[in-house]
């Protein structure tokens, strides 16, 4: 089965452009009413635009490369069979490799659980997937600096591991839905 239908992503795309158009219009009107704000708005927007467009192509290329080279099969193979410290480390590592959007991660995580990965490690995997992607860290480095990025990265990893430990204790496996459609997705 294909990931959630194309139709929907097309609709989201159109909504994004519509929101942008409305925002641009609002911005233009506001700046015409308050012409004294034009200079700062222009300077700021130009500076941010330069910073963003000089790194985005590279970030997108890195995401594409990781998606192609780290397959779902590799993740399944390593994560399904390992537990303990090794399991935690692998969950963090594979979660942090940018292999795709979050809607791929959920069915993948469900499949991993069936293969034997603990719920705690799945929580760690999902947190890493959502929060500590390598290209995103590079963007954080660019805009917020090395100290901010490294300290937040360290604390996020710690938070992920703590969450995994708590979820292992609290959530029992029998609360999992036995979802047949999962096999079709994977």
């Amino acid at each position, binding site marked *: 089965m294909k990931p959630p239908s194309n139709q929907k992503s097309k609709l989201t*795309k159109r909504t*994004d452009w519509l929101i*942008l158009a409305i925002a*641009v219009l609002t911005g233009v009107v*506001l700046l015409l009413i*308050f012409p004294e*704000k*034009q200079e*700062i708005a222009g300077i*700021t*927007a130009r500076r*941010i*635009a330069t*910073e*963003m467009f*000089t*790194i985005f*192509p*590279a*970030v*997108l*290329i*890195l995401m*594409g490369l990781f*998606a*192609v*080279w780290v397959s779902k099969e590799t993740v399944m193979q390593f994560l399904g069979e390992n537990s303990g410290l090794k399991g935690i480390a692998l969950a963090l590592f594979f979660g942090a490799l940018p292999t795709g959007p*979050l*809607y791929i991660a*959920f*069915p993948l995580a*469900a499949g991993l659980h069936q293969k034997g990965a603990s*719920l705690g490690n*799945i929580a760690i995997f*999902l947190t890493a997937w*959502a*929060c500590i992607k390598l*290209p*995103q860290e*590079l*963007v*954080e*480095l*660019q*805009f*917020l600096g090395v*100290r*901010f990025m490294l*300290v*937040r990265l360290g*604390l*996020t990893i710690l*938070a992920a591991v703590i*969450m995994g430990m*708590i*979820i292992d204790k609290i*959530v029992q496996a029998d*609360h999992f*839905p036995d979802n047949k459609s*999962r096999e079709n997705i994977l």
Partner: protein
Amino acid sequence: MNNTTVFINLFAVAGLIISLLLDKQKTDQALKMALKSFPKILPQVLLIILLIGMLMSFLTSTVISNLLGKQSGIFGILLTALLGAVMHIPSIVAFPLAASLLEKGASVMAIATFITTLTMIGIVTLPLEIKELGKKFAFWRNGLSFILAILVGLLMGVVL
């Protein structure tokens, strides 16, 4: 161009060269994916550039530091935590927004909390998470994320 910009671009070029040496087909596929995601993310990038331009010219430092600065205390942190939890914007466009707010007097705690809940908690993806992993798991993962994200933010404020 600062050092980080150069580093990121060199990293991408090196990755491309290595990938090309190993497998041309896979490299083509990766480039195609990158090309396809560009127009997808473009409206959000343009929107955030506009938003930052407007915020920086219309909001004074006093307003921002009252809302999100150190003196806003726990209110500012809860506000950013909630905003981050319900918003659905890619983190790569959130970083420049966060940096601009910091420049204008928002506290490290509030901003770090915002980025962390933004990425850790997904209200939009919650139905899918429940479907695949169960209500109890989804509830605990997102709930714990909210608390832990605030803790991460508070600690960031102490460390930095």
